[in-house]
């Protein structure tokens, strides 16, 4: 490209130009030059990106019923026009050659096409077989209406609580951490914290690859010359480490010791924030058996618990130098600094995940680094609607929408009233959480006979798959239904496959990591007979209703998903050809809004989200009209629910006095540690090029060629000891399984000697056949980040 061409193209390139925040509101979301480049016949509209939990907005260009261009949305505060490499390719993910386009039923061992009517009959019959043994396994990639419809179908219709999302594997420990600390889920702060902090600490977190556009805020500030300190605390060097001022490498599970070491020093030095703690905090410790509320302890008991966690002791437990733990304590001791902690799977996929999450909150509370912009303990989510759908809609097996739980009689009564179903319809006993659900499915006499999987790929992502997934496929009368957009490791083994619409082929709403609810409209038709997941749920519900299944009627005998038009006439939305006669998403969302006001998670009317690039809850109506979002919860200057004069108020405090809980959590050893037979640590995770199990991104040639296959990252010293060369295929083995992988020495990430890393995106190299299903006692979230493994040269090599 010569200079003239370059200047011409660059002039057209402003489609994704990032606006400074002050400029974001008044500009065209798509640059006029970009509009001209793709042509005036291309219609642009907004949507959140389909992939990670950051919640970037894209502009989607559509011509003649096809998505033809993607640009960053210049009006979006989240990403200010930037996108990562996955985001730029999100439109292409619709157009893979092997999209699922017709229902498929396994007959004589083979999946054969059937009609939708037959497929719906099959699902309905599986429900009728025994509703108490029917389960739904969903996703943090469900849209809010999809999760809400499935939730209502199961808990309000079947009276069965066996519904759980893959988010159980992703952020359940963050939920229990928030509940145990504040009595209510989700971060208090927002992404603005990243613009205002002096220090960012990443705890077992690699946002440079996993939340790249969010990490751009940090890079942007640095590039403008701002002094901002990044401390990366991890078990392996990553791309985030490359930008860090300090890298602190800890032994797996050592995060618990580091956090106790910081708290110990704050107390020993007298540099904890006495005023903040006196006014706003209380202390807690575990009981036996453990509960999320634990027991109240005194400050002196808390201090005594921490007494053994001297820097030297914590160095021995964590491997992090005592001087580095002191350096962290110095930072938290300084009230003039603003400190943001970020964490994600490192803290969550942890057999002590709830404990670590509460420790992270505890260090911020103890030091008073809370409640000011930039001072925030912030857990990030991995999926685009883990917050919006799994956490807020409450699609977990113990939960109900709006922060309600099935075990609470008042909550059940509120939910039954909002759904207008008979008292007693919702069962009090929590359903099976993810690991338990799949265990039961894999036992001949287990409590689950059928699982309907929606928007996820458990055949590749469940831990210890030889125990939790494969056995069910050899059992008679265990029936697996999968709604998906492409063939996957799960559809491969399914009994019934339902082809789904994807992203802008349907209406949708997501909720991102900063409590921001985001809406989009259907822009193109799905291929073949692929249909919306919401429709699939409603259509099955209608089948049951027509068969006289009592649970599909409300108290007045109306269909559970009774949808009316503007003249209050029922619209038969269970008929696909009528489904888009009305906006079913709007209907479900407005019904769901009734729940959100029960725990100060208020959402605005649907149409407010149509106009905006998302709003962060609680969203409250202003006296003069209009709606106002909340950036900083629990802080009087921004949160409308904090009492005047309180400054900070934790209004869902578990101690009932407006206080947050600072927990004492003793260090505990990992569930499995390397030994002479399995001498290395195994850690698993994602890569920047691929979304989760790669079923969408691996079909995009550009992304596939950038990262074509999984590998095992090995430290050079270990490779040398084992005589392994870079690129050589090696055998990786745990007590649960084995696979072969090419070795990558001095690769993108750098594990320390004694540990290896394997990404899980590659279906042909299913690392989750090796991982551990041991899980946190409160969140039930398994640990994918540490187990014992051995590495050998391939036999005969």
């Amino acid at each position, binding site marked *: 490209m010569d200079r003239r061409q370059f200047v011409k193209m*660059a002039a057209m390139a402003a489609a*994704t*130009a990032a606006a400074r925040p002050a400029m974001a509101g008044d500009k065209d979301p798509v640059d006029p030059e970009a509009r001209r480049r793709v042509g005036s016949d291309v219609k642009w509209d907004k949507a959140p990106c389909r992939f990670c939990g950051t919640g970037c907005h894209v502009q989607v260009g559509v011509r003649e019923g096809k998505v033809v261009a993607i640009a960053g949305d210049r009006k979006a505060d989240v990403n200010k026009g930037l996108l*990562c490499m996955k985001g730029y390719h999100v439109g292409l993910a619709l157009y893979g050659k092997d999209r699922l386009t017709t229902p498929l039923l396994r007959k004589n061992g083979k999946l054969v096409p059937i009609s939708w009517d037959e497929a719906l009959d099959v699902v309905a019959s599986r429900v009728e077989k025994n509703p108490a043994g029917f389960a739904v396994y969903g996703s943090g990639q469900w849209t809010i209406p999809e999760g809400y419809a499935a939730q209502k179908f199961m808990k309000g219709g079947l009276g069965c609580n066996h519904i759980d999302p893959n988010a159980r594997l992703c952020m359940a420990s963050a939920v229990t951490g928030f509940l145990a600390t504040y009595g209510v889920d989700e971060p208090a702060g927002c992404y603005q914290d990243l613009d205002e902090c002096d220090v960012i600490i990443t705890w077992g977190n690699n946002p440079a690859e996993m939340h790249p556009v969010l990490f751009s805020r940090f890079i942007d500030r640095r590039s403008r010359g701002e002094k901002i300190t990044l401390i990366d605390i991890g078990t392996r060097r990553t791309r985030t480490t490359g930008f860090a001022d300090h890298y602190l490498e800890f032994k797996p599970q050592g995060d618990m010791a580091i956090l106790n070491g910081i708290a110990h020093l704050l107390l020993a030095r007298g540099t904890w924030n006495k005023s903040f703690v006196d006014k706003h905090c209380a202390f807690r410790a575990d009981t036996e058996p453990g509960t999320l509320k634990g027991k109240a302890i005194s400050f002196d008991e808390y201090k005594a618990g921490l007494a053994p966690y001297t820097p030297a002791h914590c160095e021995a437990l964590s491997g992090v130098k005592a001087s580095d733990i002191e350096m962290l304590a110095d930072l938290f001791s300084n009230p003039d600094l603003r400190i943001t902690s970020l964490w994600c799977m490192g803290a969550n996929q942890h057999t002590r995940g709830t404990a670590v999450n509460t420790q992270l909150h505890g260090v911020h509370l103890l030091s008073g680094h809370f409640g000011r912009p930039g001072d925030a303990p912030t857990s990030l989510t991995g999926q685009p609607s883990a917050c919006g759908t799994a956490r807020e809609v409450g699609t977990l097996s113990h939960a109900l929408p709006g922060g309600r739980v099935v075990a609470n009689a008042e909550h059940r009564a509120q939910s039954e009233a909002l759904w207008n179903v008979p008292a007693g319809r919702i069962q009090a006993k929590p359903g099976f959480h993810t690991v338990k659900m799949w265990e039961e499915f894999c036992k001949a006499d287990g409590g689950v006979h059928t699982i309907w999987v929606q928007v996820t790929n458990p055949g590749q992502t469940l831990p210890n798959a030889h125990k939790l997934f494969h056995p069910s496929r050899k059992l008679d009368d265990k029936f697996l239904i999968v709604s998906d957009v492409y063939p996957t490791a799960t559809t491969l083994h399914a009994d019934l496959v339902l082809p789904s619409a994807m992203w802008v082929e349907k209406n949708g709403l997501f909720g991102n990591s900063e409590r921001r609810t985001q809406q989009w409209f259907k822009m193109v038709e799905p291929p073949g007979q692929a249909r919306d997941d919401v429709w699939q749920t409603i259509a099955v519900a209608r089948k049951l209703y027509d068969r006289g299944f009592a649970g599909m009627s409300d108290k007045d005998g109306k269909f559970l998903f009774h949808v009316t038009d503007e003249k209050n006439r029922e619209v038969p939305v269970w008929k696909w050809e009528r489904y888009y006669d009305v906006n079913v998403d709007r209907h479900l969302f407005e019904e769901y809004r009734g729940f959100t006001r029960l725990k100060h998670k208020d959402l605005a009317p649907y149409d407010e989200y149509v106009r905006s690039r998302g709003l962060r809850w609680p969203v409250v109506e202003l006296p003069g009209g209009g709606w106002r979002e909340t950036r900083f919860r629990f802080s009087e200057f921004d949160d409308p629910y904090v009492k005047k004069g309180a400054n900070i108020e934790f209004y869902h405090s578990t101690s009932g006095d407006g206080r947050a809980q600072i927990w004492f959590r003793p260090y505990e050893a990992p569930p499995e540690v390397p030994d002479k037979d399995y001498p290395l640590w195994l850690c698993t995770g994602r890569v920047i090029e691929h979304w989760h199990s790669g079923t969408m991104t691996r079909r995009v040639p550009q992304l596939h060629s950038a990262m074509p296959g999984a590998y095992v990252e090995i430290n050079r010293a270990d490779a040398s000891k084992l005589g392994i060369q870079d690129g050589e295929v090696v055998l990786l083995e745990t007590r649960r399984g084995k696979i072969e992988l090419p070795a990558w020495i001095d690769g993108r990430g750098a594990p320390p000697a004694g540990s290896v890393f394997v990404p899980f995106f590659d279906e042909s190299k299913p690392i989750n056949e090796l991982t551990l299903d041991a899980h946190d006692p409160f969140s039930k979230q398994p640990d994918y980040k540490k187990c014992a493994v051995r590495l050998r040269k391939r036999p005969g090599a």
Partner: protein
Amino acid sequence: MPTFGLVITPRPFGDALALLAQVPGLTLGQGGTRVPAVLELDSDDPGANALDALRDHPAVAAVDIAFADFSDLKEPIDSGVFARRRRR
């Protein structure tokens, strides 16, 4: 003030991003081997000099426009990675 959305391919050496971060008006995102970026220009600068300088910057291997235009896509895409399963 004109702004340009770009995707920069840095040259493969360790300090490339650090060098790019020094470019006035350039906001870097994080994108692995292809880094989203924004270049802001003075309103009285037609852009040619700054963009030309960026193209010639020692840390830059390539600069592309920053939006995906696949309007010429005629056939469904196929990375080939799942072809073997389709044949099964």
